[in-house]
């Protein structure tokens, strides 16, 4: 047990370091870009005086390093821009302040996260179920029509860009068959049924496409796994076929599947960009794209860092789960 604790602590420390490096890099890259956020905020007519005022207010008149330190400090202690009645507060954890939207970036992210999370988690559950079960079925029927079918479907799945399938799905199920809503998001708290109803198409589209890689991975892993000697042992013990396949076969195929799943889900939670655009949903990806369009650097930096954070956390979780799933890693 202490082994795994140490392992987690070491990984956590490494994670913090990578996050620091990431934030510095993102900060330097985006703030080195000539687009001046103050210019956009200063209003019209933008006299040099007002521009200077805006720069000061937004704390852009300080050195880049100072700005980065302010940013870091804001994460733990919050920040205040300006003084007195005009002051703008950004409470900890403050990941910057969007002057165009007049909201702290943290709030914006938290507002948009449920949309992205609804898309990502729902689709992830579906694709995991579809992908793994079809992959197992394909492996068990290796070379037979069922296997060919699954492999063919998977191939088409990995070859279809998600936005293309999304557009097709909207066209067919939304416009032609009139079965599902074509866009928009309804919060779960408002109406769980409408929430799910609006999400069905994006879920299915994402699930079908992502399932393709899981079919391929699961099939390959299962074929390898079912060839191992300990599978024969299980049969020789008198285990039934279902037990052989699931308890002994799938168990061994689990590690790579879980690894891929964690990384995919982590990546998607940071913004299902294409899906949100195709289905017109106001998630993190949409927040980012519109922020980019308005040169709202604070939001761009915030969302980028948040996505990076999720990916790193996903990596960490995957490594820990890997340790938990494979006794050869966790037990010496």
């Amino acid at each position, binding site marked *: 047990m202490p082994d795994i604790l140490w392992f987690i602590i070491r990984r956590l420390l490494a994670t913090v370091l990578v996050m620091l490096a990431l934030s510095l890099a993102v900060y330097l890259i985006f703030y080195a870009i000539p687009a001046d956020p103050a210019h956009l905020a200063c209003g019209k007519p933008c006299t040099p005086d007002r521009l200077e005022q805006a720069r000061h207010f937004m704390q852009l008149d300080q050195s880049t390093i100072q700005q980065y330190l302010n940013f870091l400090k804001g994460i733990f202690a919050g920040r205040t821009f300006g003084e007195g009645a005009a002051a703008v507060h950004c409470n900890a954890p403050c990941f910057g302040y969007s002057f165009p939207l007049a909201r702290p970036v943290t709030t914006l992210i938290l507002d948009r996260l449920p949309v992205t999370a609804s898309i990502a988690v729902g689709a992830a559950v579906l694709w995991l179920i579809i992908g793994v079960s079809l992959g197992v079925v394909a492996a068990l029927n290796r070379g037979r029509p069922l296997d060919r079918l699954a492999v063919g479907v998977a191939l088409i799945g990995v070859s279809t860009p998600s936005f293309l399938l999304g557009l097709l799905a909207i066209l067919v199920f939304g416009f032609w068959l009139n079965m599902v809503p074509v866009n928009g998001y309804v919060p779960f708290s408002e109406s769980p049924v409408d929430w799910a109803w609006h999400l069905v198409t994006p879920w299915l589209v994402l699930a079908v496409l992502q399932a393709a890689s899981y079919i391929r991975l699961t099939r390959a892993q299962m074929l390898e796994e079912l060839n191992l000697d*300990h599978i*024969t042992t299980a*049969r020789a013990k*008198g*285990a*039934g076929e279902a037990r052989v396949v699931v308890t002994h076969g799938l168990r061994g195929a689990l590690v790579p599947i879980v690894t891929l799943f964690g990384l995919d889900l982590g990546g998607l939670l940071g913004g299902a960009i294409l899906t949100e655009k195709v289905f017109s949903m106001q998630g993190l990806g949409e927040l980012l794209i519109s922020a980019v369009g308005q040169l709202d650097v604070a939001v761009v930096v915030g969302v980028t860092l948040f996505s990076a954070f999720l990916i790193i956390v996903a990596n960490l979780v995957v490594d820990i789960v890997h340790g938990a799933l494979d*006794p050869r890693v966790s037990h010496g």
Partner: protein
Amino acid sequence: MAEPVLEVHDLRVTFDTEGGLVPAVDGIDFSVAAGQTLAIVGESGSGKSVSSAAVMGILPSNAEVKGEVLLDGRELVGLPSDELRKIRGNDIALVFQDALSALNPYYTVGWQVAEAYRLHHDVSKKAAFQRAIELLDKVGIPDAARRAKSYPHEFSGGMRQRVVIAMALVNDPRVLIADEPTTALDVTVQAQIMQLLADVQEEFGTALVLISHDLGVVAEVADDVLVMYAGRAAERGTVRDLFHRAAHPYSLGLLGAMPRIDVPPRPRLTTIPGSPPSPGSIKTGCPFQPRCAYTERVGERCITERPELTPRPGEGDHEAACHLGRRPEAVV
């Protein structure tokens, strides 16, 4: 002689492969009685493992099995898979050569032994685990209660083989098939494992089918011996028949060509020039002919007529499949 527990008659196994039909086992017979040991010897590729897998009914689906496998007189070939499942690991158990790959790396050894028990007994997991500890203790694993919670990779090779034996014995099988159980181990550990098998056999009256490369071991523990060559029986008899009046040139080759009663045979398998034919490649005549030092004495017949297993006159149940009538002498 005691009633045989396991009887095999004219067993044939054919694999349907991309390269055509492979007759890996081409009609063999053997039987073993309670408390007795039958040794099967032969170079690798001669069909020993395939024969034992056929008896267990755990061959892959591209294998076709013909002939009779009788357990206490009950025919196993063609039995519905559900019936067979109840026999596997319960009445007949298998000990594999490579214990590391035969054990599932993801489960504790206690769990794996307990699983074998639970598959044939309607008991709680806890009771089964208790039974597993008992067996692990019996096969000589020190501190079994604690070690039961360890994973296979945490054991030494010899200890792992003990675990596999415990797993095979947990249901008090009538027949134990040990497929080269000591090949992967070093010499002192080999002796310990063989002693363990002998003790178990004495205590439970298990019928043992021992597949081995080690003629020294065979000479020591076996009652009867079957010599296999290219999927067929070359010679069959008591251990005395084989070591003191071997009748087949192949057996002589294995024994190092010393067919003298008064001189103890060399314990190790000596190499015979040339290599065994791939199954089915020799269609007529004696499969050993290309490597046989005696074929010139017999002549034409070795190439045109397949020698069948025939009793040696005046030597009881001793049989050999060779056209050479009298006992061959060593060729120096």
